[in-house]
């Protein structure tokens, strides 16, 4: 039983991270019906900026004296940087194709993904880069379940970001404008909403969440690599589809389910650990086959959010 709860905590941690990345896919899809394949690379860029900032702060001794401050600083800076990067990507690769077919934009997204991934490889090298993790040790045991402070930190940051996003989307003026634009671009223009700005903001928000996820994955696994965005990106995409692409609550639920399934399968299926990447894709295929609208989705041909 202890083992089960241990895996549950691990699954929740991983699932929260997938949920953060899945939100970027689902929000962008909701607003311009694009599967933004470059989103995984934004996540990777966040992970890299995190390692650069944290290593520097660690070398200055700051991570020993003020670890939480250093982490928060790295998180906020990486989120801001990735938001700007995603806005630039949108402006260069997607906005000029606003009137083109969806396939053209999709190809542009694939191209952007390759471009960014190679950019990371060229500037950061092909080898793993280790995260400074000295400050993340420690934890406690509770009812036989070992919980590291790192996991608590990841869960807390994830929960905070999910709550902030929900508030932003459902309570604020810009959130209402995002939902209105996703539902009807012509009408939202007729009430005075500049859709280009809303689309740009949507990319920025999704990227900020992915950047935070990138740092947390780097801390959790202890290293980053230039191609680290690919597999988690596709798993998060599977999570978005599972939840019902375009649906924000769905992306959160989908992310948690995919993370949970991956961890539990690795724990309980013989040799499951070696095949752990397979389960997200099995779910993706199953969802596409049996319920293409996902858990929270409505009509396939309708836009959501």
């Amino acid at each position, binding site marked *: 039983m202890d083992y089960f709860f241990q895996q549950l905590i691990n699954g929740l941690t991983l699932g929260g991270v997938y949920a953060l990345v899945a939100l970027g896919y689902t929000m962008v899809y909701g607003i311009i019906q694009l599967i933004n394949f470059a989103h995984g690379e934004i996540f990777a860029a966040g992970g890299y900026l995190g390692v650069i900032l944290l290593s520097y702060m660690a070398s200055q001794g700051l991570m020993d004296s003020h670890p939480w401050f250093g982490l928060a600083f790295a998180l906020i800076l990486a989120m801001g940087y990735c938001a700007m990067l995603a806005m630039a990507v949108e402006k260069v690769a997607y906005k000029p194709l606003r009137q083109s077919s969806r396939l053209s934009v999709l190809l542009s997204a694939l191209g952007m993904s390759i471009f960014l991934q190679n950019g990371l490889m060229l500037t950061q090298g092909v080898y793993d880069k280790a995260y400074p993790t000295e400050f993340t040790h420690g934890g406690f045991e509770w009812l036989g379940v070992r919980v590291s402070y790192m996991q608590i930190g990841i869960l807390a940051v994830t929960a905070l970001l999910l709550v902030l996003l929900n508030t932003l989307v459902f309570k604020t003026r810009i959130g209402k404008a995002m939902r209105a634009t996703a539902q009807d671009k012509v009408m*939202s223009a*007729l009430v005075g909403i500049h859709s280009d700005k809303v689309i740009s903001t949507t990319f920025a928000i999704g990227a900020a969440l992915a950047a935070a996820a990138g740092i947390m994955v780097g801390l959790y696994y202890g290293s980053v690599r230039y191609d680290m965005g690919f597999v988690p990106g596709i798993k998060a995409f599977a999570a978005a589809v599972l939840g019902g692409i375009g649906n924000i609550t769905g992306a959160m639920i989908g992310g948690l389910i995919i993370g949970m399934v991956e961890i539990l399968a690795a724990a309980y299926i013989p040799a499951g650990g070696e095949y752990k990447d397979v389960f997200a894709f099995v779910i993706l295929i199953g969802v596409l086959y049996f319920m293409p609208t996902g858990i929270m989705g409505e009509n396939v041909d309708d836009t959501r959010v």
Partner: protein
Amino acid sequence: MAAILELEGVCAHYGRIQALRDVSLRVEEGEVVTIIGANGAGKSTTLMTICGIVRATAGEVRYAGESIRDKRPDQLPALGLCQVPEGRRIFPRLTVQENLDMGAFLRRDADEIEADLGMVFRLFPVLHERRKQHGGTLSGGEQQMLAIARALMGRPRMLLLDEPSLGLSPMISQHIFRIIRNVNEERGMTVLLVEQNANMALKLADRAYVMETGAVVMEDDAAALRENADIKKAYLGQ
């Protein structure tokens, strides 16, 4: 009186098909003007060209003395030009309240917005009852009321209405037309109304334009057109 809206020789195309031919019309401040005509005559296209959803390929569109031909649709509400578009275009997964909030999207005067909200709830009490429901769950008549209420929330100087009676029962249409007359008289709001129901439109309007195959073919006081033999035969079914 000064013209608030003026179209001069406006042409518009859908691909290679010409949808508007040399359309000229003017609306004076405080007037209710209607454009009547059969399906496909170019009435809706005229409205969409005014608000920039369809681009004029020739001619000039002036609003309050300023050319708006090259403006984006989202720049017009700030000038006081609001539209109730064809097909109502309610945001289906926003609540009624949120739909109304969107109508006031550009406004910052919280107290006045609150007052206008009270005003539209008095005009359409059913919207108050349903304010927490999603827009998509309303009936056709309620959606039309919501579309008009949403436009009123922008406190427009001029309101463009595209077929407000389409698909509605005569009773609900009449209710909606009374309210249009009401906001025109009480708030001095200028109205340009596109309607297939020529009978009702001509009763409501001060002046009218008749469109056929993308061009204006007649223009007169609404009362005079109601007595016109050709109009009676072609549009009023008499």
